[in-house]
């Protein structure tokens, strides 16, 4: 049974970027929260991709299509241009093959949406200035046990997209669920970027 619960603020923002009755591929979809919401609220169809078994079971329990696979091996199996949107939410920072997944997103989808913890957030900078690796709400790990191996700032990510032939169509930052408009790369802890092939 799908019970109406409050969607995570960053997922709600992603959802607001997705038009009704489109096809969405959600990479690292967890238990399918976003896709279930999009299906119920916007008649969106598509698939999630998830490596964790409990996430896969969660998707199935919600009636969300899910393909269990490791994103590091790319998106072979998905045809070029087969989705309106490809979403990668809070996953890219822990991936080995960052450039490959960006290329794959641009291949299979018309629009890409990526969210990640903004390393440029002032608190991170402040902790580094004090001589320690940052530990914060969006990066809650010590340097020796973090799964995050590819942290970047909002500006870094923009540069990567540009170098891979993508054009940013929208970007925003949030902190504790609220949108930040002033000095985004400094005051936002979570970055959301929407892009497409140039």
């Amino acid at each position, binding site marked *: 049974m799908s019970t109406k619960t409050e969607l995570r603020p960053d997922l709600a923002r992603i959802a607001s970027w997705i038009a009704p009755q489109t096809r969405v591929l959600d990479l690292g979809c967890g238990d399918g929260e976003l896709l279930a919401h999009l299906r119920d609220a916007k008649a969106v169809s598509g698939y999630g991709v998830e490596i964790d*078994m409990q996430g*896969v*079971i969660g*998707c199935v*329990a919600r009636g969300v299509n899910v393909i*269990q696979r490791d994103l590091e091996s790319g998106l072979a*199996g998905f*045809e070029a241009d087969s989705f309106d949107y490809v979403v990668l939410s809070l996953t890219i920072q822990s991936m080995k093959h960052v450039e490959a997944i960006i290329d794959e997103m641009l291949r299979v989808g018309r629009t890409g949406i990526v969210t990640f913890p903004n390393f440029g957030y002032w608190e991170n900078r402040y902790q580094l200035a004090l001589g320690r690796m940052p530990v914060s709400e969006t990066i809650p790990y010590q340097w020796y046990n973090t799964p995050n191996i590819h942290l970047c700032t909002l500006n870094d990510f923009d540069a990567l997209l540009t170098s891979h032939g993508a054009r940013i169509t929208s970007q925003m930052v949030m902190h504790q669920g609220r949108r930040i408009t002033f000095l985004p790369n400094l005051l936002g802890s979570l970055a959301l970027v929407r892009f497409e092939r140039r």
Partner: protein
Amino acid sequence: MTQAPQSVGLVTAQCAVFDAPFQLQGGAVLPGFQLMYETYGQMNAERSNAILICHALSGNHHVAGRYTAEDKYPGWWDSMVGPGKPIDTNRFFVVGLNNLGGCHGSTGPASLNPATGKPWGSAFPVVVVNDWVQSQALLADRLGIDKWAAVIGGSLGGMQALRWTVTFPQRVRHCLTIASAPKLTAQNIAFNDVARTAILADPDFHGGDYYDKGVVPRRGLKLARMLGHITYLSDEGMGGKFGRQLKAEGGYQFSYETEFEIESYLRYQGDRFADVFDANTYLLMTKALDYFDPARHFGGSLPKALEATPAKFLVVSFTTDWRFSPERSRETVKALLDAKKSVSYAEIESVHGHDAFLMTDEPYMQLMHAYLNRVAEEVGV
């Protein structure tokens, strides 16, 4: 709501007789046939809650429960089918049958050929997966089932489930194909051929007409099963269970007797199988596996073959299955994605190799529970 899993209890097999001539894909026509089947649970008023279980190479209609309280073993998928189990008989009406060509009561090579009054033997025609699906559809008609809530099978059973969506695209709501493949590889056909050669080379085989000779090709069938059994287990699973353990104390005997536990186990399994299974049926089933290729009539395109069905799919594979490896399931998934079908795919971690589809690894059971719960809600039970 969920309850503690129980057994379906005592069950009785039934027999459905079909008198009309039955055209097989290979060209032969059977002058009628019978199918043994069992059912568990109740059909609802809308007739929307029926599930078909398709069996694998050596399976039969006895899917769950026991015939008598004294039976040592329950049906072959008792772990999956029953009240409170993933295929919940409190919600679903479940049908299991013995396929045409089988040796558990359905018409097969050991049955009497009405034209001669003798067992069919070598004269029994080759049957393919699509023939099974056609015969299962006749059984569905007989039971008043227009559309299955789900067709479910592992291995060769998964091939039947997949074939259902190609042959009768509108009669399947959900297709669950587990530890299966869209067609066999050369290596897989090769394994089957060695198994068949073992049977064909047994002097007691008599070209398939051994029934009235008072013998059965036991040695060939045993060898075939031993070979098959090796391919159903993983190296890891077999190593964990048997390692290099010896049967007896005292070290190596430097002889050709059965010394290692794995030898003893395989021979026991082979003997037990040769006691209950028919060699001609084994030949027929392996051939059905080899011929299976639903894309063949669609220009070699599996997405085209699957185009017509509105069915939803669950594809499941197991990490250590090398007979029907995850790679093969991914081919099915790719075709379903290309055809823009509703599909979920899970690759279950298990040490049990191909046999894992019959086992009860926790994530596997949870996944099946979750999926079939959705199916039940969808059909209103």
